[in-house]
């Protein structure tokens, strides 16, 4: 387990590292549906610093995956496209890049792994064939060298019997093995950033822990930044350095993992933490957040969380709160923050 104190982090949770590796600025990603267009990511800004594990948390449909796909340039366009904003990587705006240049960045500099490792692997090609193809799309390497590199990477990510597995088809592997293959495929070119979109959601609980462990090991050994997308706060607690909480297409709170779990400021984050089952308490019932996620087509004029918020003021219904830092330096989006009480 990597603790946040291993790395230079200011007390406020803002990194002292000179520059972010990846900087998303004012990202608006919109979906077109039945002639109408609406934003599913609404002005999101997020920095990913070298060597950190940043978790993007939120419930289904809040725009986490769309944010990740925006970075990768893999939005299903049409109907989803980036309407506005910049995604800076080494000072270069990925949104403005051409297809060819974007292809060169994928897997080589920024890699991504996906949720369901069965459907995410091509069923009619062997693991080795696809990995060799990915390597050779980026490196001037002959097939047998590429195959060796693929085998080495599979071994590194803990796939048993890696050389034989090069000739396996996805259906011949278990869920955990498939996810290791996905990880190997994403890491084979030693990227600077790994985006992992719910990498353990489709796996057994025991396998989940192994895969998370593997991801963390790789992240440390390769000095790579990792943007982990999840809805699972247990995963966040065990792996993250920093956390960004998303709600209805925007970030509502961003803090170091310790700060966030100790003293969440935004009512949505507080609600998420209260909804977690706890072993220590005798209480039987969980504490869900009342209400439903708003439709992004019909957002209220004020704070998007206001309809579900127990502490909403009149002002919350009228104007959307900005993302502002508090005295400790972390940021959240709320006019009326309350102290966190466990239930």
């Amino acid at each position: 387990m990597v603790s946040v104190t291993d790395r230079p982090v200011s007390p406020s949770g803002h990194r002292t590292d000179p520059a972010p590796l990846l900087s998303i600025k004012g990202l608006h990603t919109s979906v077109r549906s039945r002639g109408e267009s609406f934003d599913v990511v609404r002005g999101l800004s997020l920095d990913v610093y070298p060597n950190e594990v940043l978790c993007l948390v939120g419930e289904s449909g809040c725009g986490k995956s769309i944010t990740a796909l925006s970075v990768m340039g893999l939005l299903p366009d049409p109907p989803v496209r980036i309407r506005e904003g910049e995604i800076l990587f080494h000072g270069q705006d990925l949104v403005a890049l051409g297809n060819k240049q974007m292809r060169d960045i994928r897997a080589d500099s920024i890699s991504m792994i996906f949720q369901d490792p069965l459907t995410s692997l091509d069923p009619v090609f062997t693991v080795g064939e696809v990995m060799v193809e990915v390597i050779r799309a980026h490196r001037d390497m002959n097939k047998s060298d590429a195959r060796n590199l693929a085998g080495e990477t599979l071994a590194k990510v803990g796939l048993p019997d890696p050389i034989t597995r090069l000739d396996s088809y996805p259906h011949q592997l278990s869920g955990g093995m498939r996810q290791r293959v996905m990880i190997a495929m994403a890491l084979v070119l030693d990227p600077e950033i790994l985006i992992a979109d719910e990498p353990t959601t489709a796996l057994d609980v025991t396998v989940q822990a192994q895969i998370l462990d593997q991801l963390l090991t790789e992240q440390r050994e390769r000095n790579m930044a990792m943007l982990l997308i999840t809805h699972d706060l247990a995963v966040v607690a065990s792996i993250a350095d920093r956390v960004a909480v998303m709600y209805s297409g925007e970030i509502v709170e961003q803090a170091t993992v310790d700060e966030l779990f100790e003293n969440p400021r935004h009512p949505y984050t507080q609600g998420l933490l209260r909804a977690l089952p706890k072993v220590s308490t005798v209480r039987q019932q969980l504490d869900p957040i009342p209400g439903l996620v708003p439709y992004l087509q019909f957002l209220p004029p004020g704070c998007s969380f206001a309809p579900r918020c127990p502490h909403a003021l009149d002002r919350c219904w009228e104007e959307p709160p900005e993302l502002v830092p508090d005295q400790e330096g972390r940021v959240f989006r709320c006019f009326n923050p309350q102290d966190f009480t466990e239930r």
Partner: protein
Amino acid sequence: MKRVLARTVYMVIVLALSSVAVFYAIRLSGGDAVAARVPASASAEDREAVREQLGLNDPFHEQYFDYIGSLVSGDLGNSLTNNAQIGSMLTEHGRNSLILGAAAFILVFGVGIPLGMLASLRRNSWWDGGIMTFSVAGMAVPNFWLALLAVWLFATQLGWLPSAGCCSPKQLVLPAVVLAMEGLALTVRMTRSAMLENLNQDFVRTLRSGGLSEVKVIGRHVFRNALVPIVSLAGLRIGQIVGYALVVETIFGWPGLGQVLVNAVLRRDYPVAQFFSLVLVTIVLLSNWLADVGYSVVNPRLRRG
């Protein structure tokens, strides 16, 4: 391997059963085989003598085993009408049919697959609309009518192509297109839907995230996945070509196996009709067997894990 063996055994069983069916069907269909052999003025006694000589008075099952026995020993027999050797008929007409069948096969897959891919990649465009309209028309129009229409337009009206005959390239065009049309239309539709289905699969996103070019992602990966259903039904397409060849060869006067078979059946030329029916059955079975083997080649999920 086990699967291939099982399919082979299955094929032999079906062939044996169809030989019985063919043998009985032609004998039970009425008409007189002797009529083809003797002059119309021949007396009843003469006819009876010929019938006895040909063994047609024996019980059916004895005739059947005699026939199968001589087939197995390599004696294909002779035509009742003109005494022509069935073996040489097979090589001569078989060659013509092979030319026509191969041309149709190339049209069905060589044109059908690219058209289907084009429609899927230009989804909802004019290309897609045009190709799909053509495909629906191709499936809906019966081939005998299409043949007449094509002859009227390209031979009679425009004079571009000959209306019948064998076997110059120009003479091949019309029968090959007519023979291929339905299979071509079906292949277009199937390729399009298989491509579209696979274009939306998660693995496509993974391959793109690996930085592969669209040419590789679509041309190699999506296409290979789309090939699975296409290959699995390739046997049916070939069967269709074989079956329709009877009609198309007759209309265009293409001297192939189909035409020989149709004539033999009409004249109750038992040995010829039997043999060529079995040849067609064998071709259909073989092509299904090949498609089956091909299916497990293109679909690794069928191989043992």
